[in-house]
């Protein structure tokens, strides 16, 4: 009895600490922002309701956002799943190269990504020019509107599939597939009845993420949406910057937030009904499946390599253009004289130019790791405790999904712009910590949701076995649970790191003026008001970010660490060999 009590004290302290952090940094800023925007002189202001719903543009944009979100849930799931199946499950020729091309969606995003697609399909684009040779009557401005937005976003939002679905498919127990084969099941039956059910928790999580991406779409509709297909998020961002219009922004965000809540609760209800853990304790490694039907096999190969082209063309053009002068980028006509190294020379004009990289790497890495850590702790609280109150940790971690990052930043500055007893009478605004806090907050829901999905792969029996053999909670955590969820946690950390590296929307409100992160520097250098070189610089910075993100991926996905280990091993072997040779001589 006494022993038990002693154990629970540190756990209780941890629980209080996490609860305090969630209340102070997540709940309170959000509530105070909403309160201050909607509550004027003791009354709830309802005028915003009329303003929004009498605006044809706002209503149409809201509609478009929802249409886009529902469309993407279907299309991204199809393309993303195909990506994973082509590279990990079916036996397709050149899978390694395919994998690299499909993973390009992990290393770049935003305005430049959409610009890349525009250089292929847009008015002066590569494909449009090629096609107009065969169909002289075709409209060069065909790549605009709903279809164009869906196309760009479908292929650029598959990063969660490439990370999490890939992990999930590798944790599949191959014994079950073999057993089904022995019983005479067809490839299709195995896929739909054995493989898919195990992947379900991951699919749920990815579907939520995709839906949210669709609701929050920004660059793609702005650039290729045309007049007919604009979404709501750009409007929210614009309005949230003006004190006067902030209530419109907050109101629109609350509508999106309500949709998010409904979706989340539906999914967690559905999820609770199923049992997703494979029964085997000794899992066999997955072997790639041959597609037996020759016709299907050919179709699969064609589809896989077509997708390769879709993924590669924009990124190749961006890399090429980063070496080109301004006129080439604008006209799209590449000649031998177009190439220049000048753009890259501007990157490092002085030692000072290196600082933003270091600042951003430090902030992003710190926030990515802390968000993952807090998420693991919260997931444990929610899963392990019998007390219903612990579900509150889940809500706490998911709240930041309800508001766009601009409003979260504003919430933080409003809540902690003056001394506040909740954080021991400190002022957070103007310190170096507030940006880190903001980064952690906006990455918390994603981290929580993905790590929660990964916990479904943890077999309770394993944990019980460890406990029976006398292992403590923490030891079990470290030796039994963490190894199982580690791939997912690593993926979360990498995606968060890459996502934060060049963040602008939140950063611009919170960064310390003496420690400018990369996103701010990039915006200043590639802002069109700045100068004519701006366009070139945005390509150069994208390439630099691609390199940084690729390095993170390389190490995070294990290959990099393995390579280092191998190299160390070889060096050790050489040393031993040399010593031996010396002894012999």
């Amino acid at each position: 009895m006494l022993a038990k009590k002693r154990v629970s004290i540190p756990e209780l302290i941890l629980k209080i600490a996490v609860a305090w952090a969630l209340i102070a940094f997540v709940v309170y800023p959000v509530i105070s922002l909403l309160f201050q925007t909607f509550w004027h002189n003791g009354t709830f202001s309802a005028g915003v309701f009329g303003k929004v719903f009498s605006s044809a543009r706002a209503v149409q944009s809201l509609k478009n956002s929802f249409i886009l979100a529902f469309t993407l849930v279907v299309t991204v799931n199809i393309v993303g799943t195909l990506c994973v199946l082509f590279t990990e499950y079916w036996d397709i020729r050149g899978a390694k190269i395919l994998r690299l091309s499909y993973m390009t969606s992990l290393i770049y995003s935003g305005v430049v990504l959409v610009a890349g697609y525009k250089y292929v399909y847009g008015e002066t684009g590569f494909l449009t020019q090629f096609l107009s040779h065969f169909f002289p009557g075709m409209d060069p401005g065909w790549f605009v509107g709903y279809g164009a937005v869906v196309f760009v976003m479908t292929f650029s939002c598959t990063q969660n599939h490439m990370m999490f679905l890939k992990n999930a498919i590798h944790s599949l127990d191959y014994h079950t597939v073999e057993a089904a084969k022995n019983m005479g099941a067809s490839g299709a039956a195995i896929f739909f009845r054995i493989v898919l059910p195990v992947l379900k928790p991951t699919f749920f999580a990815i579907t939520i993420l995709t839906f949210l991406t669709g609701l929050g779409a920004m660059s793609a509709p702005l650039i290729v949406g045309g007049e007919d297909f604009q979404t709501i998020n750009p409007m929210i961002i614009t309005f949230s910057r003006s004190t006067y219009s902030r209530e419109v922004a907050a109101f629109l965000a609350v509508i999106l937030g309500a949709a998010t809540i409904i979706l989340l609760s539906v999914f967690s209800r559905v999820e609770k009904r199923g049992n997703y853990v494979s029964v085997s304790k000794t899992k066999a490694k997955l072997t790639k499946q041959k597609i037996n039907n020759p016709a299907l096999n050919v179709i699969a190969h064609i589809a896989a390599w077509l997708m390769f082209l879709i993924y590669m063309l924009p990124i190749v053009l961006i890399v090429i253009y980063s070496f080109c002068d301004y006129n080439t980028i604008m006209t799209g006509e590449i000649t031998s004289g177009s190439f220049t190294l000048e753009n890259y020379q501007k990157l490092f004009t002085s030692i000072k130019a290196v600082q933003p990289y270091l600042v951003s790497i430090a902030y992003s890495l710190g926030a990515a790791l802390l968000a993952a850590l807090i998420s693991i702790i919260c997931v444990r609280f929610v899963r392990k405790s019998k007390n219903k109150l612990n579900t509150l940790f889940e809500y706490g971690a998911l709240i930041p999904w309800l508001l766009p990052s601009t409003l979260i930043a504003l919430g933080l500055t409003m809540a902690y712009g003056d001394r506040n007893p909740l954080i021991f009478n400190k002022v957070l605004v103007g310190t170096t910590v507030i940006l880190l806090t903001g980064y952690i907050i906006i990455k918390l829901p994603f981290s929580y949701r993905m790590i929660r999905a990964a916990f479904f792969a943890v077999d309770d029996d394993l944990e019980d076995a460890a406990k029976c053999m006398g292992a403590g909670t923490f030891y079990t955590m470290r030796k039994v649970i963490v190894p199982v969820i580690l791939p997912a946690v690593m993926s979360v950390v990498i995606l968060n790191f890459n996502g934060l590296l060049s963040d602008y929307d939140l950063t611009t409100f919170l960064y310390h003026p003496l420690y400018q992160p990369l996103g701010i520097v990039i915006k200043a250098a590639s802002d069109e008001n700045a100068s004519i070189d701006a366009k070139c610089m945005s390509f150069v910075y994208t390439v630099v970010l691609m390199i940084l993100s690729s390095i993170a991926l390389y190490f995070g996905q294990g290959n990099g660490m393995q390579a280092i280990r191998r190299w160390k091993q070889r060096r050790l072997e050489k040393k031993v060999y040399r010593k031996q040779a010396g002894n012999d001589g």
Partner: protein
Amino acid sequence: MKTRKSVAIGLCAAAILSLSACGSGSSGGDSGSDNSGNGQLIVYTNSGSDGRDAWLEERAAEDGFDIRVVQIAAGDLANRIVSEKNNVQADLVFGLNNVEYEKLKAEDTMEKWEPEWKDEVDLSLGDPDGYYYPIVIQPLVNIMNKDLENPPQDYTDLLSDEWTDKYTILGFGGGTGKTMLAGFLVRYTDPDGELGISDEGWETIRQWIENGHMETEGEDYVGAVIDGTRPICEMWGSGVLQNENERNTKFQIMSPEVGVPYVTEQVAILKGRNNTEKAIEFANWFGSAEVQTDWMNEFGTVPCNESAFEQAPNEVKEFVGSVHQQEIDWAFVAENLDAWVEKVELEFVQ
């Protein structure tokens, strides 16, 4: 094993708590020493891109000022100064425009002061209460393709079918687009009208937006002016000269009879730091004829300082001579601009 577990959990808790503890380190109690910032002046501006920040830091160092110029986007700069009110990070600010400075004044973020060069500038461009003083003028204009025949003389000409989809309106989120809108709206001031604007005014604005083209992200609107696909476009003063030089072309400038909005970049001293005297010293130096002449020659700005402007290159003088200032009640604009933008964004923009 149990102790190890306790230690681990304790560490986790400590890590989370330290999040706030770090915060306290650099703020709060020791804010006094923090704010003195070892003598270096922190200068906020939205006008520091394109190498201006580095140039100014170097030029100031030559004359013995240790400064750090922090470039912040125009839309965020005033917000940031207001939110940092209780933990002030910068000693002075330059750039922005009268509308933004009026907001800063309302939030009590600036010190009253008097520059040595106040007799060399037109004080009516600045603040009657003496918080901010003018340094650089930006006339906001419509640039037009150099070969455009029978060009429109005024905004109101644009509403005809002849110019449907022939002109680019810059986004109302940015400074230029917003101020151009204000300049157009104040022609229709009516105390009884919605948000101080007459019905005729709102109807004109609606037609102007519907008949034109709103800037979309990433498009090359200046290129469209040059190649004639959309030959008219809004542009800020230094942008006119910069684009003419960089793209090796000439623009026609629309010069309405009522004039064009002049945005005036100002300089002000922020409240709540220990460096006020040094900051004023720097502002005196920065606004002086000598430095403003260098600034103009380097970046093509139009200085308010009259003796600096006398030495302006011909192209700058020619450009400024081709337009004149529209009379605008900035206090009225500052009071209503955000509401106007919201109305236009919600009801008129497609």
